[in-house]
């Protein structure tokens, strides 16, 4: 391991010199990179986020929502039918005691959630209600509920077609199920789509799953301690991530994986306390959400404006249909791929229907959005609702919580930093799996990707590379274009698996292990 550190130290030293040069040149080099990158990738970003003609509705959002609706109908609203069963699986009721020590359903769900719960739930929701008004919340919840079916489909396939190696490790995800599933169904182009997905996944991992997170984490720290060069944050973050993913220092990851759920619970807990403190206004807030969903209550673009913002936020936050969760969930050692799909449908529910809705309700109830007392409509300026403190994004969420707990912004800042770190760890794995799919499972290939990943953390934190971030977001959604195309062709396989599983569950062939233990004890 010392050898690796010796080789990589000069790389980091070089990076710090380069980023210092960026800072010293007063953004000249930054601007040049931005312009060059924007020119090279602008067409791709514009294509992915292009609106339908005559509207401002990005087609990619519609693509995700239509897919979620198709899967919901095709699997006859599996997200509602098997919601209780999903909780039963997570509790371990159906887990074979002889498999103790393997990855549990709870662990796979928690790991996948730590990759999606993050900035989107805190800042993204504030942006959505800041532009689309309270009505955006209604569409966000609807899209979250539909997205549960997309997660079910992709995660079932993730487990069914994963690779299990002789040494006991596993690799899974859309690249595996697209290539194997297409071959099984005799469809052409599987390998091509799998490689295309892998390329987008690597770009998404380096961008949205890395640079964007590093950038926002730095912005949070700078907001508390005052402005300072981003490369310092970058080096620290890169060093810690390097220690975890290359150095194998599990204790850091273990601490993060324990603290992140705690922060999530603290966040939801604080939101609940605020809602209880303002219990008399909850009815009014839901009234605003329903009314705003269909009238817009004066927001720019009316109800369509609210709908776009709500759909967009849900899709961007829970990543249903993107394919990333399928990579995370494929590690579970279950004999029934459907069980993992069922468990994964809880993910958009927790991420969007619970956490995002909490954020939205707190913003609405604490009166952050200003209303014209005469018309009852929201006061809109420049396409955005005027807020009580004049801020938007993460600062709006912070202001909403601060109105009840003055100390909360510090907790929130810490939460954002930790969420960013845990999202980076998750995406380093997703990117790595795509990388090894293309370049082979070897130590050398793995190390190369991990080092590149760490270098991009420094770049992400050091420079405000707007076009690069736009490109990264576009790459994550491009993953959804390929993944959902694959899902449409492979959904009959999932249906067959689901029907067989449901029949065996109904006939009693698949039973709760707790019941079996009870019976044998009675005998």
């Amino acid at each position, binding site marked *: 391991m010392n050898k690796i550190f010796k080789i990589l130290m000069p790389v980091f030293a070089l990076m710090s010199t380069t980023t210092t040069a960026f800072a010293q040149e007063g953004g000249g080099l930054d601007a040049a990179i931005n312009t060059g990158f924007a020119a090279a990738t602008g067409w791709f970003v514009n294509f992915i986020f292009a609106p339908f003609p005559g509207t401002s509705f990005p087609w990619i959002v519609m693509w995700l929502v239509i897919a979620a609706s198709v899967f919901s109908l095709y699997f006859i609203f599996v997200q509602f039918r098997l919601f209780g069963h999903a909780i039963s699986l997570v509790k371990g009721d159906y*887990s074979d005691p002889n498999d*103790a020590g393997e990855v549990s*359903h709870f662990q*796979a769900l928690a790991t996948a959630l730590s990759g999606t719960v993050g900035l989107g739930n805190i800042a993204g929701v504030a942006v959505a209600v800041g532009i689309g008004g309270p009505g955006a919340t209604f569409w966000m919840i609807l899209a979250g509920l539909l997205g549960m079916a997309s997660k079910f489909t992709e995660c079932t396939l993730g487990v069914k077609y994963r690779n299990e190696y002789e040494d006991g490790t596993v690799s899974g995800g859309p690249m595996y199920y697209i290539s194997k599933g297409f071959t099984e169904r005799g469809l052409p182009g599987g390998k091509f789509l799998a490689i295309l997905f892998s390329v987008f996944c690597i770009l998404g991992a380096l961008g949205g799953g890395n640079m964007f997170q590093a950038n926002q984490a730095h912005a949070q720290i700078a907001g508390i301690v005052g402005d300072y060069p981003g490369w310092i944050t970058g080096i620290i973050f890169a060093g810690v991530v390097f220690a975890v993913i290359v150095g194998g220092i599990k204790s850091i990851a273990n601490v993060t994986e324990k603290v*992140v759920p705690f922060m999530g619970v603290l966040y939801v807990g604080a939101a609940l306390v605020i809602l209880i403190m303002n219990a008399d206004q909850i009815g009014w807030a839901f009234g605003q959400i329903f009314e705003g969903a269909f009238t817009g209550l004066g927001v720019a673009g009316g109800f369509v404006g609210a709908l776009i913002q709500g759909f967009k936020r849900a899709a961007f936050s829970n990543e249903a249909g993107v394919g990333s969760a399928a990579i995370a969930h494929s590690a579970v050692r279950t004999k029934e791929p459907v069980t993992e799909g069922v468990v994964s449908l809880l993910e958009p529910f927790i991420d969007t229907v619970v956490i995002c809705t909490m954020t939205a309700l707190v913003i609405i109830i604490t009166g952050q959005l200003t209303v014209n007392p005469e018309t009852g409509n929201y006061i809109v300026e420049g396409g955005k609702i005027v807020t009580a403190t004049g801020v938007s994004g993460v600062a709006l969420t912070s202001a909403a919580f601060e109105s009840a707990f003055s100390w909360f912004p510090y907790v929130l800042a810490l939460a954002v930093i930790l969420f960013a770190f845990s999202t980076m760890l*998750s995406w380093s794995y*997703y990117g790595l799996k795509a990388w090894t799919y293309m370049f082979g499972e070897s130590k050398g290939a793995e190390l190369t990707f991990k080092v590149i990943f760490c270098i991009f953390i420094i770049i992400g934190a050091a420079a405000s590379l707007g076009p690069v971030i736009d490109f990264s977001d576009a790459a994550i959604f491009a993953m959804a274009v390929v993944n959902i195309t694959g899902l449409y062709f492979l959904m009959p396989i999932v249906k067959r698996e689901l029907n067989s599983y449901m029949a065996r569950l109904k006939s009693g062939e698949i039973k709760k292990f707790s019941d079996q233990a009870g019976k044998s004890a009675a005998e």
Partner: protein
Amino acid sequence: MSATLIVGLDGTESGNRALAYAKKLANLIGGCELLVVYVIEWSPYTFQTAEENSQRHKRREEEISMAMERVIDPAVTSLKADGINARGIVRHGDVAELIDAVAVEEKAEQIIVARSSEGGFVKRVFGTATANLVMHASVPVTVVG
């Protein structure tokens, strides 16, 4: 019908004392079987990274073979050398819960464990594995000091 005695080991010196006592007891009773149990502390509700999850099966196999090699096999070999009928198992989970479950499964007469080696904060908050076993065991338990 021969009696089965369960010996819970934790790979420490105190575990060896429990084994020595069980051996003595087995000789006194005569014709009984000793089942040596080693439990790897594990919970399905911990938080892990995606990479740890992907390697979990491999790690589990390694943990089991290491426990067999370092704790169970030497104990079983020494018992057999002394003419005692013995076998060993390794399980993942909660120590107290699993030793009791194995005792019930095997219809054992008694469980023999060492005084707990845990201490400090964990002991104060959660109690020790031995204390939990003594409180909830379905068969008599002998704690060796």
